[in-house]
């Protein structure tokens, strides 16, 4: 069902098919890029794991990062909210700019940055607090104590994450009592509660069953109206279903980046085609 609607949607949405080259720039000139990446290199100690990445991530669209394990797609994703800062020996070169500002410039407030760039992890990681307190966490550390604002935000975030109806009667129950799929949607709601501009998702459905996965995918599809979403996935069909743009990574390099339809129907690079058709990976 999702496949049908999504496919139908993608034919209409991916209208400007001017992208004949594998240029990093998005085809749509009316939609300026939210995130600009230029010659971005990443090192763990001495080993270089990302080589000269260049791409533009469009605003309020879903960009999927695909590629075999260890290709650097997660590392790249975690570079966008500087979560890699906590890894000892990590070092970057080059530019990632969010809304025109270099994220790695000196004096950038990493804490403030992470409030603008939310993240959902591969394994759902709710705090061992109530459902309510999980969602309110981001607001509370932001110093908001007003019960009314908290209540409203919790409800709105849970509704956006399509979890409200399932949990509205037990907001004070432990978040750990929820099912795996619910926990992951709770984590999405928690990230949405601080009202980020960008949402990074690191294989958000890889540990979930097909039905829970479908819910997450539908959610991603709806969220792109308000958020710029970057999603790492191992599941090619998922990338095809939910994303507008797809970047194919391999061995730390960006092999091809284009409209999702182009990547899946008519890739320019032989390697991309081989990967997508399952010849390796």
């Amino acid at each position, binding site marked *: 069902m999702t496949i049908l609607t999504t496919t139908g949607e993608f034919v209409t949405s991916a209208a400007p098919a001017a992208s004949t080259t594998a240029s990093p720039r998005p085809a749509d000139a009316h939609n300026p890029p939210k995130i600009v990446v230029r010659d971005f290199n990443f090192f763990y100690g001495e080993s270089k794991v990302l080589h000269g990445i260049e791409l533009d991530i469009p605003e309020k669209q879903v960009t999927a990062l695909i590629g075999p394990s260890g290709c650097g797609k997660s590392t790249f994703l975690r570079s966008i909210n500087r979560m890699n800062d906590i890894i*000892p020996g990590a*070092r970057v070169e080059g530019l990632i700019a969010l809304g025109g500002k270099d994220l790695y410039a000196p004096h950038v407030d990493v804490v403030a940055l992470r409030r603008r760039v939310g993240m959902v992890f591969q*394994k759902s990681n709710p*705090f061992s607090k109530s459902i309510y307190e999980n969602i309110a966490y981001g607001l509370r*550390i932001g110093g908001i104590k007003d019960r009314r604002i908290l209540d409203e935000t919790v409800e709105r975030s849970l509704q956006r994450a399509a979890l409200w109806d399932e949990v509205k009667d037990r907001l004070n129950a432990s978040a750990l009592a929820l099912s795996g799929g619910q926990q992951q949607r709770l984590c999405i709601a928690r990230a949405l509660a601080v009202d980020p501009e960008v949402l990074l998702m690191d294989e958000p459905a890889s540990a979930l069953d097909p039905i829970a996965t479908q819910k997450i995918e539908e959610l991603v599809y709806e969220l792109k109206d308000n958020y710029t979403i970057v999603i790492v996935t191992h599941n090619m069909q998922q990338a095809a279903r939910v994303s507008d743009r797809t970047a194919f990574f391999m061995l730390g390099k960006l092999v091809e980046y284009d409209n999702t339809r182009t990547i899946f129907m008519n890739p320019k690079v032989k390697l991309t085609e081989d990967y997508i058709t399952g010849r390796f990976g």
Partner: protein
Amino acid sequence: MLKGNRRVADKFAITLLGASVVIIVAILVVIVGNIVIHGVRAVTWEFLTQAPRQGLTAGGIMPAIVGTAALVILMSIVAVPLGVATAVYLHEYTPAEGLNLAWRRFRVSKGLPGRRKLFFRAASALLATVTRSAVANLAGVPSIVFGLFGLGFFIQFIGRNIDRATQPPGEVLWGQGSLLWAACTLALLTLPTVIVATEEALRTVPQDLREASLALGATQWETIRRVVLPSSLSGIMTGAILGISRGAGEVAPILFTGAAYYLPYLPGDVTDQFMHLGYHVLILSTQSPDVEATKPLLYGTVFVLLALTFLLNLTGVIIRSRTRSRLHR
């Protein structure tokens, strides 16, 4: 088919291992049984609520119970915050990769940007290693040495100097044995247990949770205060209680730092001396003018001391098992 001597060796090993278990249990049963049988008889309402009388051959142990409780509470107030803070620093703020790796990373970083940061990382890892071995060594120091240290450092040095600064000449208030200095001395003895247990509890908090918090724009301290500490609280409390219950039974550290031979009144201030159950046992068994008359009192005192320690341990175990069942729900 097993050869004969292998079968014999097998039987022999099982017998030996089983025998050691039986011996351990038997020793415990004899000691505890003896104390319980004789002790219960001595424990009366009068025994628990009155001060010793007639040269310690009659009366109760009320000042010792109160003194022990006050000492343990005061010691916890000193030891737990200090121990938890040290453990949080060691586990959350010093480099997780350890000294060797941090140093190697610094050495190979010649000419690369961010080398200064790697140097500070290595220095911090060195500090952590030094602190950890200091803690381990502290745990190995005999308790009588803590007692002498308490006398020399807290009373003779700190206490005397406070007196010199605040009291009229010749007056001694801080520069003598007291609840406060005994509690501080005992806290030093308890610290390693608290630090090690807290670090262990912090280790059980999944890295995922820290990342989730940081990704929401929390600072490291907010992450520790709102996520890491609440998740590890019961582990920390268990460790703290076990450490405290060990400290509660120690006599040597308080011998020179404030325990009193005999006090008919209760301590009213941290500068007062106090009676202590463990010390009272020592006094009853070595200083009594009438050994036979003292015997029931001695049994009763040991029984009360054991019961208090057991209660503390039980609290620790209950907290731990509650957390476990919550984790597996």
